[in-house]
């Protein structure tokens, strides 16, 4: 199957056959194995944060940011889990990478892992969409091992999914990591995809020497938070001026730390289809000119939300891709019907008739 044909199907949220998925993953593996752990790219580029399987929101990103290959993209990881369309999301990105290898770049996030995807939904979604076996999940988690870890833009901007590591002082130390493996629990590779910045403007009695600006252990007992001083040190040693990362939900789409030395980009609007948060993509025009393009959820997701008010219904939706597709088709059919000029008073969503009908369709649960 040709790549352009794959793209055509994927843009319509149609699944590719299992044999095609296998072939595409094999091809991408061949391509990625030659890439360094650290890739270097130039502006202009648009940086995208976590997607978490929200496929229609990713299409919305290509709408507002411009389609590939007209726009260069850098994705910071976490393509799967939690959303309803992780398979479609990662497959579209894989085919775009194969078709336009120098226009789109994919970093690895902490969810690109076998252990995490079994607990957070991607494994379940693969089983449900590919006939109850886990082969597609295996192909995709194998390709996750080949994704690159970091990206440097214009030799001055460091991009990574999570953050810094006490085991990484220089970029060369990242280049020698053996990345072709499952993400370990500790070490530099783990820290790069798991660590979080922590702002501490109020030195307290706990650490009056401002040690909060260094690496601290998370209260969960593993993993680091990093403070301003280690960021400044890392940037100084590597002659860079700032860091972009993802990994954490931002209610307005992005979050700035340490006066702009570190910025989180978050690109999943209305996260988990219920948070109501905004999302953003970072449009880098040059190393000094950039714009956070903030947006909300794609219209398709609003329709889904109305028919799936809670988690149980969402799980049912995953089990019924046919019903989902019919839902989307109905949505666009209504639009085309409107375009035909036919009048339908029930389309007015606040009319009593529409509300009565949709109310009877909404989920209620005789919970005990």
């Amino acid at each position, binding site marked *: 199957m040709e790549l352009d044909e794959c793209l055509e199907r994927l843009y319509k949220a149609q699944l590719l056959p299992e044999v095609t998925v296998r072939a595409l993953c094999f091809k991408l593996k061949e391509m990625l194995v030659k890439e360094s752990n650290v890739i270097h790219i130039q502006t202009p580029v648009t940086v995208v944060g976590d997607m978490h399987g929200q496929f229609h929101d990713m299409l919305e990103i290509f709408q*507002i940011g411009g389609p590939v290959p007209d726009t260069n993209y850098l994705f910071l990881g976490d393509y799967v889990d939690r959303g309803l369309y992780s398979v479609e999301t990662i497959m579209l990105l894989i085919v775009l990478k194969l078709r336009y290898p120098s226009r789109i770049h994919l970093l690895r996030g*902490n969810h690109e892992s076998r252990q995490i995807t079994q*607990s957070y*939904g991607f*494994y*379940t979604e693969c*089983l449900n969409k590919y006939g*109850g*076996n886990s082969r597609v999940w295996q192909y995709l988690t194998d390709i996750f091992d080949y994704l690159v870890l970091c990206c440097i833009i214009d030799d001055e901007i460091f991009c990574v999914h999570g953050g810094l590591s*006490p085991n990484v002082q220089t970029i060369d130390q990242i280049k020698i990591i053996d990345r072709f493996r499952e993400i370990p*629990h*500790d*070490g530099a590779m783990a820290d790069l995809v*798991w660590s*979080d910045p922590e702002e501490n*403007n109020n030195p307290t009695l*706990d*650490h009056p020497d401002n040690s*909060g600006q*260094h*690496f*601290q*252990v*998370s*209260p*969960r*007992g*593993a*993993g680091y938070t990093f403070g301003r001083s280690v960021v400044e*040190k890392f940037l100084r040693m590597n002659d860079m001026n700032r860091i972009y990362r993802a990994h*954490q939900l931002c*209610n*307005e789409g992005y979050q*700035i730390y340490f006066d702009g030395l570190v910025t989180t980009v978050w690109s999943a609007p*209305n996260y988990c289809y219920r948070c*109501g*948060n905004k999302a953003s993509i970072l*449009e880098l025009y040059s190393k000094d000119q*950039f*714009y*956070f*393009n*903030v947006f*909300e959820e794609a219209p398709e997701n*609003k329709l889904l*939300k109305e028919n799936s008010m809670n988690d149980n219904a969402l799980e049912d939706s995953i089990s019924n891709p046919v019903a989902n597709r019919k839902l989307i088709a109905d949505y666009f059919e209504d639009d085309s019907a*409107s375009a035909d000029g036919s009048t339908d*008073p029930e*389309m*007015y969503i*606040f009319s*009593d008739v529409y*509300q*009565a009908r949709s*109310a009877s369709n*909404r989920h*209620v*649960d*005789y919970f*005990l």
Partner: protein
Amino acid sequence: MSKRNTPPLRSSGINTIQINAAREMHAQTVRARRMPMPTSGITTPSVQPTAAPATPPRHICNNPNNPQCLHCGSVIIPSPRATLPLEDNPSISINDWTISSRKKPILNSQELDIWENEKLKGLTLPEMIFGNNYIRIENSKQHWSIEFNALDALKEVQLQDSGIRVAYSNDWINSKKRQNSTNGAQRFTNDVNDDSLNIIHKYDWTYTTRYKGTESSPESKFRLDNDQKLPLDKLAVHDKILFYDDMILFEDELADNGISILNVKIRVMNERLLLLSRFFLRVDDVLVRVYDTRIYVEFDENVVIRESKEFEGKYQDVLAKHRLSQSHDPKAALRDSNWVAQNTPMIKRQCEIIQF
């Protein structure tokens, strides 16, 4: 995160929020314009209830956006959030009782700053706080109400170490200590020393809360009575649900090490209501915990029963029960708090009652 300032946006590019808002407003206007046009051949089907109601409906719908209940023919569920700044606070009244609810998105940065620095000082806030959500059950005659909201639930979270660690914590800490020993001679190059391996933040990162609702009276009117039981036989009957809502108060993904979520839902029938507030905690490969609080109200007898149950078990013990079912996807069940509650030992139960 004590600093959440949003800098002024640079002027390059188009702000798509405005585009989307304009898009929605235009679509709504076009649809509204079509409403009054007469159409031949289309008639509204007359509503024919299956049976005349034995008693006239006693409830009052207080819903600006929801359809009026016609012979109890519709379930009242809050409308989709309006694109205009129209407030939608659906509520229903039966006798002296009024039940109301509100659902909004998670707190924005300004709201989070206030909660972090004033209302919940000392607690690192969970990632998703639906701070404007609530469900309230009110009796106007008795001047009493009970409400479930996120702020009061989070006030019950302890500001001290829970002692719980993620599954790989021991291995992780020991690995770091070995590295420190190896690098002892080069300590000046290492940003981590032995002091840094001690956990400094003092709060319960699992956000465990035994929240049972907020009463309007300064002293609780509930009286302990563990012999009381919820009348499950009445609740099992599928009486028509007149009001239903289901919402999350807060949620945190524990940095992808599990989930901590407080969910509240309520269903109101003609003679009674049931509210379930459920705190669900899963620390992957460590433990699962479910704390349930149920509120039962019998409208005619003016009885309120509050039952609390605590379930807790080791992750592997609970997972083993699902493995027995030969499932291909055992961990999916641990995302379902209903399944977890049914397969986890109950460690505590308490029942309280109010008889007005």
